[in-house]
């Protein structure tokens, strides 16, 4: 019983992290059709900022956390302004390849300017202690992660429903030109999307760092891959789909960990992808995909 509850907590925590990551990708994609492969590098920026803060400014973990999230937001906005603005209205392929290229450049810049080796980040260890809920032993980090993800998702929903800019962003994912024809500045909509994306990345960064304890140039690769798979499963461009995909991926991963016998442990990833593959065969556009029109808009 305890084991089942622990594994459920596990699945929830992983799912929450993947949902956060996937939402970061989905927000940008839903508005400008850009698959932002550089999202992982934004997370890495947060990690390196933690190192810098810890070494140069203060050991106060709260400040380090704020610094990291802030850095992720700034990095994300900078990417929009510098790298993605020229290809803003270009077709999806151009944007995707540009994002790929930016991701490569950033990864190698980290390698070049900081270090090819992992650097330890110890400031966040305090977040991870064993605690008991209803008599079941879980890790506090998992609780934080799940709770804050739910809070963030709810906040995002409120933002998208109640504020003018949030409405504009939802409309932009349907008909961007029409949004501009309402007098709403395109720049502002894009900036908001990337800011939210950066915030989500920053949050994910905190939890990733707390768990890993180190940062290296290729840190962003795995998270962005997981985010990507979650989006694909949930339906690329759909925000609820991203959340669904994230939690589903978490559940499947933990499920595989639990169900596979010990010897096959290393095959977990293959099985996970196999299941994802089956989902794609059943629903090639993802489970909650937004409808795609191929014709001209009259």
């Amino acid at each position, binding site marked *: 019983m305890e084991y089942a509850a622990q594994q459920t907590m596990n699945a929830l925590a992983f799912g929450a992290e993947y949902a956060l990551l996937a939402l970061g990708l989905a927000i940008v994609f839903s508005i400008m059709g850009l698959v932002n492969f550089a999202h992982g590098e934004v997370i890495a920026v947060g990690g390196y900022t933690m190192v810098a803060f810890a070494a140069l400014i203060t050991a106060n973990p709260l400040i380090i956390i704020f610094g990291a999230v802030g850095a992720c937001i700034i990095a994300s906005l900078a990417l929009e302004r510098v790298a993605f603005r020229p290809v803003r209205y270009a077709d999806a392929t151009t944007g995707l390849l540009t994002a790929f290229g930016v991701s490569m450049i950033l990864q190698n810049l980290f390698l070049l300017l900081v270090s090819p080796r992992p650097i330890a980040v110890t400031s966040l260890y305090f977040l991870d202690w064993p605690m008991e809920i209803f008599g079941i032993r879980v890790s506090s980090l998992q609780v934080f992660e799940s709770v804050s993800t739910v809070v963030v998702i709810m906040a995002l929903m409120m933002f998208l429903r109640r504020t*003018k800019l949030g*409405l*504009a962003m*939802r*409309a932009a994912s*349907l*008909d961007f*030109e*029409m*949004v*501009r*024809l*309402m*007098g*709403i*500045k*395109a720049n502002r909509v894009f900036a908001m999307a990337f800011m939210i994306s950066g915030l989500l990345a920053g949050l994910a960064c905190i939890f990733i760092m707390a768990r890993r304890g180190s940062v290296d140039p290729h840190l962003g690769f795995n998270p962005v891959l997981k985010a990507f798979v979650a989006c694909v499963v949930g339906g690329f461009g759909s925000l609820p789909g991203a959340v669904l995909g994230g939690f589903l991926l978490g559940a499947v991963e933990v499920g595989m960990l639990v169900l596979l016998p010990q010897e096959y442990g290393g095959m977990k990833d293959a099985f996970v992808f196999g299941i994802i593959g089956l989902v794609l065969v059943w629903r090639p556009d993802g489970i909650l995909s937004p409808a795609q029109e191929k014709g001209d*808009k*009259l």
Partner: protein
Amino acid sequence: MLKIENLKVFHGPIEAVHGISLTVGKGKCVSLLGPNGAGKTSTISAICGVASCTGTIRLENVDLSTKHIEARVRSGISVSPEGRRVFSNLSVEENLILGGAIRSDLPEVKKDVGKWFDTFPILGERSRQPAGTLSGGEQQMLAIARALMSKPKILLLDEPSLGLAPMIVGQIFAMIKTLKAEGMTILLVEQNAHQALQLSDYAYLLNNGQVHAEGTAEILGNSDSLMAELTGIT
């Protein structure tokens, strides 16, 4: 109010409109008529800032040509575009609120939304429904109401009767007539020449990207040859 001179509109390398000039006086309703492909929608796109063009576009003597789309809307242009283009996943109410996006007085915006619900009860009934579930006529009403939420100086209407049943078309034109009576300046693009001419003070007949004829609605309406050209029957 709106003065256009020597407007040439380009779609890529192709010139769709070859240097036309037109004027819309304040409080007047001016029609832009002509068969399919004449360049009417291209003209509207150019005024909005969506299509690339040369020539001058002045709104109340302010030159619009250097302004981006958003800035032109803030200057007082508002459009109900071809195909209505309501935000299909957003509710009717959300569509209207977005229409008033450039205004900073949110309580007044909400009041105006309420006023539209009073004027068109059907919109009020469906206020929380996704706009995409509305019928064609209801969507057109919504598109026009949305365009008016920004309290524009001039309203551009692109083919409001397109794809609508004749009875609904009548309702839409009645709506436009009311707007005109309230003093709204309107530039109306239509293929439905008869109805458009009944509303308009002045009309331009566009064909192949050029103005073939212009004049008051009466003169145009009474000319058989022009009517034949307008309806595309030669």
